[in-house]
C-alpha cells in the first residue's frame, strides 16, 4: 500500500506561463544567438540556480520579479535584519517581522505566495561564502546599496573565471537606485566593463542606515540626520523642514551638536548641517520597482536567449519626465580587476613611499583605504600583522629610488578589495 503523500498540486505550467512561453515557443528577429525555441529552453529557465545579493528595497522586488518570470531555484543572501524604517518601502515585510532576518522573511513570503518556487535564504555576509558557493549559480543579480559590497562581489566573480571552463563565466546583473535616479547594467566577466572599470562614476554614498542614525552614530553626519529625520518630525509634526531657512538649520545644529557631544563626535558645523539636510535622498519605491524589473528582464533574456540582452548599461532618471540613457560602457585596459595591463604611476624618484601611498589614496578610480605594498622581492609597507607594520614603517619616509627600480612592478593589497592591484612605478 502506498504511503499517503502530501502533494501540493501545481498549476498547469503551459497555462500558468502562457505569456512567457509565447516567447520561448517561437523564434523571432530579435532573439540572441543560440536561441532554440521549445521544451529545452523552458526546462532550462525553470531549473537554473540564480542568486540575488541583497534583500532590501531592490532585493524584495527582484525576488518577486524572478519568481514571476519562471525562475524556480532562487537563492538570496543578506546580512541585515528588518528595521521599522524598512516597512513602508520593502513590501514583503510586516510589523511582526521586525528584528528577523530580511533574507529569511522575504524568502518565505514569496514561497507562500507563489507555489513551486524555492527560495533559499542565507542570513549573513557575502564574504562568508567561498568560490564553491558562488560557482553553483548561472546568473548573479546584485541589488546592493554599498559600493564596498559591490566591489567585493564583482572582483570575486570575475576572479573565478577560468577560460578553460566556460561554466565559470557568471554574468552579473547589477542594479542601484538613489531617489529618482537608478541604473541597471550587465557585467560579463572579461567581455564587458566590470564594476571596477567604472568606479570613478560613483559618487560618495549619501544615505546612512537608520539603525546607525538611531543608535550608533559615529560621524557628525549621523547626528545631523538623527536631528533632521527623527527629532524634527517628532517636535514639529506639521512643519516641513526647509534647508534654506537659517532658523531651521540652527535648530538642527543645536540638537545635532548636543548629540555629538554625548557620543564624543566632533565636526558638526552649520554648513555641514545644511549640506546633509539638502542632500537627503530618500529611496523611492517606484525607482526600485523599475530598476529591479529591468534587472530581472535582463536575467530572463540571458537565461533563455529569447532576445538580445542590453548593451550594457541603462541609466534612468524620473524627476523631470521619464528619461533613460542606454550605452555601452567601455572596459578599461588597466582595470585592476579585469584589465590586462598594470596601472602606470609616474612619480619623482625623490618622492617618498608615503608620497606614493598618498597618490594612490587620492585616485578615485581605485578607491583604496589602507593599502599594503610589496614588490616581488620584499615588503615595502604592510598594514598587518603588527610586527610587519612596525618593521616596514621606516620605509614610509625613504625615497622611492632607495626601495624600488624605475619601472618595477608593485603589488598593492587593500582591505576594500578581495584581490591585489599591480602598478608599474615610473620615475619622472
Amino acid at each position: 500500500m502506498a504511503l499517503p503523500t502530501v502533494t501540493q498540486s501545481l498549476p498547469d505550467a503551459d497555462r500558468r506561463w502562457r505569456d512567457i512561453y509565447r516567447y520561448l515557443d517561437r523564434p523571432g528577429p530579435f532573439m540572441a544567438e543560440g536561441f532554440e525555441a521549445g521544451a529545452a529552453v523552458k526546462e532550462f529557465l525553470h531549473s537554473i540556480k540564480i542568486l540575488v545579493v541583497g534583500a532590501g528595497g531592490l532585493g524584495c522586488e527582484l525576488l518577486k520579479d524572478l519568481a514571476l518570470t519562471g525562475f524556480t531555484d532562487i537563492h538570496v543572501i543578506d546580512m541585515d535584519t528588518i528595521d521599522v524604517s524598512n516597512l513602508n518601502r520593502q513590501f514583503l515585510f510586516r510589523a511582526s517581522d521586525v528584528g528577523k532576518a530580511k533574507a529569511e522573511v522575504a524568502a518565505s513570503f514569496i514561497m507562500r505566495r507563489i507555489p513551486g518556487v524555492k527560495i533559499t535564504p542565507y542570513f549573513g555576509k557575502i564574504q562568508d561564502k567561498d568560490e564553491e558557493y558562488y560557482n553553483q549559480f548561472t546568473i548573479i543579480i546584485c541589488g546592493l546599496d554599498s559600493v564596498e559590497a559591490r566591489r567585493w562581489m564583482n572582483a570575486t566573480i570575475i576572479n573565478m573565471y577560468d577560460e578553460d571552463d566556460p561554466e565559470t563565466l557568471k554574468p552579473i546583473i547589477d542594479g542601484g537606485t538613489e531617489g529618482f535616479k537608478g541604473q541597471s547594467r550587465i557585467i560579463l566577466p572579461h567581455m564587458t566593463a566590470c564594476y571596477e572599470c567604472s568606479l570613478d562614476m560613483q559618487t560618495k554614498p549619501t544615505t546612512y542606515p537608520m539603525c546607525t542614525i538611531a543608535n550608533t552614530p559615529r560621524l557628525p553626519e549621523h547626528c545631523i540626520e538623527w536631528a533632521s529625520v527623527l527629532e524634527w518630525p517628532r517636535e514639529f509634526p506639521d512643519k516641513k523642514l526647509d534647508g534654506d531657512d537659517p532658523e531651521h538649520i540652527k535648530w538642527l545644529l543645536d540638537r545635532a551638536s548636543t548629540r555629538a557631544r554625548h557620543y564624543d563626535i566632533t565636526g558638526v558645523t552649520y554648513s555641514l548641517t545644511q549640506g546633509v539636510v539638502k542632500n537627503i535622498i530618500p529611496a523611492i519605491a517606484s525607482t526600485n520597482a523599475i530598476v529591479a524589473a529591468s534587472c530581472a528582464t535582463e536575467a530572463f533574456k540571458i537565461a533563455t536567449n529569447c532576445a538580445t540582452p542590453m548593451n550594457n548599461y541603462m541609466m534612468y532618471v524620473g524627476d523631470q519626465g521619464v528619461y533613460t540613457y542606454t550605452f555601452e560602457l567601455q572596459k578599461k585596459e588597466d582595470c585592476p580587476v579585469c584589465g590586462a595591463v598594470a596601472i602606470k604611476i609616474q612619480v619623482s624618484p625623490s618622492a617618498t613611499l608615503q608620497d606614493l601611498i598618498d597618490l594612490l589614496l587620492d585616485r578615485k578610480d581605485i578607491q583604496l583605504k589602507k593599502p599594503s605594498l610589496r614588490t616581488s622581492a620584499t615588503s615595502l609597507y604592510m598594514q598587518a600583522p603588527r610586527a610587519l607594520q612596525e618593521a616596514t614603517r621606516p620605509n614610509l619616509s625613504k625615497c622611492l629610488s632607495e626601495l624600488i627600480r624605475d619601472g618595477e612592478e608593485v603589488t598593492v593589497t587593500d582591505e576594500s578589495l578581495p584581490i591585489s592591484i599591480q602598478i608599474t612605478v615610473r620615475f619622472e
Partner: protein
Amino acid sequence: MSTDQLWSSYGIPMAKLLWKAQNVELEGIGSLMVVDGCLVEESDLGQNFFVTPASVGQSRAKVVSELLLELNAEVEGSHVQRDPAEIIENSPEFFQHFSLVIATQITGPSLYKLADICWAANIPLVIVRAHGLMGYSRIIVREHTVVESHPEQIVDLRFDSPFAALREFAESFNLDELDSMAHSHVPYIVILLKAVDSWKRKHDGKLPSSTADREQFKQSIRDQQRSDMPGNQNFNEALASAYRAWTPTTIPSSIRSILNNTCAQNITSETPDFWIIARAVCDFVQNEGQGFLPLPGTVPDMHADTESYIRLQTIYRAKAREDAAAVSERVANLLASIGSSPSRIPVQEIEMFCKNAGYLHVIRYRSLTEEYATETARSKTIGNSLAGDPQDNIAWYVMLRAVEVCKTQFQRYPGESESHYVSDQQTVRKCVDAFMQEHGLDPALIADDYVQECVRAAGSEIHVIAAILGGIVSQEVIKLLTHQYVPLNNTVIFDGIKSAASVYEL
C-alpha cells in the same frame, strides 16, 4: 483630503501600479478602486503577484484589491466586478467622482470612449499597455500645473541688481583691510558683488559683455587674491561663478508666457489658485518687483565663516519674505475682487510659489482624439523619429497602433493562435502600411522584423515589463496627483530588448 482613483484593468500592470502608488510617500491617496470583470485564471498566476492558486475562479477585482490592501492598511480599497468596457459603454457617469483613472490593457473603441469621458469631465487619464517585451504609457490631462518642479538648484542672486540690504552688506566689507584669515573667508557672493559694482562704475553702469571684458573682469578678481593664503577657495568659487555676475537677471520666456496667460489675466471666481497667484506675481513684476520675479531667497553653499554666511542667508531670505508679502497682498486683493475669502489661499502656498516662480511648469496635454485623428496627428514627429536615431522606439508605437486595429477587428491579439501565425503577420503588415499611408509616411520605414516580433509577442503580459511600466506609471501618477516634479508629456515607449525608453509628444 480624500482622493478617489479608479484603476480599471485586465491584468498585472494594474496590480503593480496600485501597490506602488501606496508606497511612494503621498498624503493624497485616500482610496482606490479596482474595476475588472474577469475571474482569476491560471495564466494570472504566472504574471500577477496579487493572486494565489486558491483564488483561481474568483473575481479578479476582489482578489487583487484584497491582497493589495494588505500592503497598506491606511488606504481604503474597493472593487467592482464589472467589465470596464461595459461600464464605459453603459455607465459613463461612473467615472465622474474619481480624481484619476488608469486604464490598463484597454484598447480600441472602449479606450477612445473612456478618453472622451475623462476629457469632458476634466479627469486625468493614464493609459498603460504591455505587449511582450514592449511597454507603452500615455498621459492625458487638459491642464497640469507644477509649482514645485524640484530643479537641481534654485539660483537667483541678483549680482547685476542688488537690493538695498544686499548692497549695504557687500559695502560693509573692505577687502584691503581684512587680515589674511578673514580675507580668505569672505563669501564669494560679496567678492562678486564688489567686482560688479566697481566694473559698472568704470563702464557707464554696463556689465562685462565681450569676451575681452569678461576676461578682464575675472582678472580684476584674481588681482585681489593674496599670496600668503593657500587655496584661495572663496576666490576660486567667485571665478567659477563669475558668469552669473555678468548674466543679467531676466525672466525666462516660458515663465513670461505663464504670467501673461489668459487664465492669469482673466480672473473669475472659478479660477484655480495657481492662476490667481500667477496673476499676482505678474502684477508684482510690473510694479514693486521692478521687472524681476519675487526673490527665491536661497543661497548656495560656499566657503565662508559661519557668521557671514548666516547673515547672507538672512538678508536674501528677508527680501524673499518681503516679496512674498507683496504678492500675498495682491492675492488677497484679487480674491476680494472675485468675492472669495482671503484665507482661500494659504500664505505658505504663496511663499512656495514665489520661491519657485522661475521654475513653474504648465503642461496642456493633447487629447487622444487629436492624436488619433489624421488631420491633427503628429505625423511629422513620427516621420522624423523613424528617419533619425536607430535607437529610437517610435517603430514600436506604429506597431502598437497596428496591433490595436487588428485586436478591434478580430477580438484577439495577432499571434495568439498558432494556426493563424503566418496570416496574422500579413494582416499586421497591412495595418502598418495603412497607418503609414494615412499619415503620409513611407511604409518601408517599418521593417518586417517589427511585425514579426509583435506577432510573436501576441499581446503577452510579461510580468517584468509590466513591472517596469507599473513603476513608471505609478511615479507619473504621484506627480500628477501631488503637482510635484514634472510629469511626462505625453507618451513613453519602453523597449525591453534594447532596454531604453523614448518620450514623444503625440
